[in-house]
């Protein structure tokens, strides 16, 4: 594969960013829901 480095970096970075965003969102939602249930 030509330019493997760039291609893999791009795909990996995208996966990390998207997964990371989703994860952060999910964690924040769970925390907020817990606070909501407490009230």
């Amino acid at each position, binding site marked *: *594969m*030509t*330019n*493997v480095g*760039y*291609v893999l*970096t*791009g*795909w990996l*970075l*995208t996966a990390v*960013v*998207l997964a990371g*965003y*989703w994860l952060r*969102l*999910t964690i*924040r*939602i769970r925390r*907020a*829901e817990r*606070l*909501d249930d407490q*009230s």
Partner: protein
Amino acid sequence: MLFKPVVRRALGWAALIALIALALFGLWGAPPDGYQGDAQRLMYLHVPAAWIAYFAFAITAIASALWLWPRTRATVWDRVAGSSAELGVMFTALTLILGSLWGRPIWGAWWAWDARLVTTAVLFFLYLGYLALRRVPASPDARAKRSAIAALIAFADVPIVHFSVEWWRTLHQQASVFDPAHKTNITGVMAFTLWLGVLAFTLLYIYLLDRRYLLAALEDNFDARQLDQAIKERQAGAGTPGPAPVGQSESEIGR
């Protein structure tokens, strides 16, 4: 929240499956390009990311307008606007980074001052500012009003930016080694993969929008309850009865 749980979960899975399929086709199923080699594979992410970013900002503009228009004003529009803008900024950042990663092997440079790149960069900063504005502590209405106006100014500015930058760069076109790769005629498996990318990212966007919206609603409710609590405490301290707590009608998030 925007969708029923069953719809939301289906969306999430569909997005995930589409993304996995995209990875399979993008990294393996589709052949390398004649001119660009395997660097082409970055386009399967970069182009869909760009389209979804623009789409997200358009949604923000529409939602902002709907909020500003008195007859359609509703909290839901403010939350959609904010959520969509955050997604838009994320996808724009991805677009820029992937574009750089593509540009380095193809052009030999991480960046080029060409119209599309510059406009995308300005777009990124426009909405980054919008997000900063939304984080300033304020009453929901004040926040919504300021954000909506800022969003519409940003949106109105985009064509001016685009046109002026394009005019600027066509005047200064040095020998264009920059193959307008976005316009390359791709067919067959490559075209299919690109559309698969658009589908996957669209599904992902809609799913994330729903989730981000939920978070916005939960956080707004939490803030409203904090405010009520503070008011009650102050009244208890002062010994005076006050107006009824503000937050009770806010629990409209219906799960």
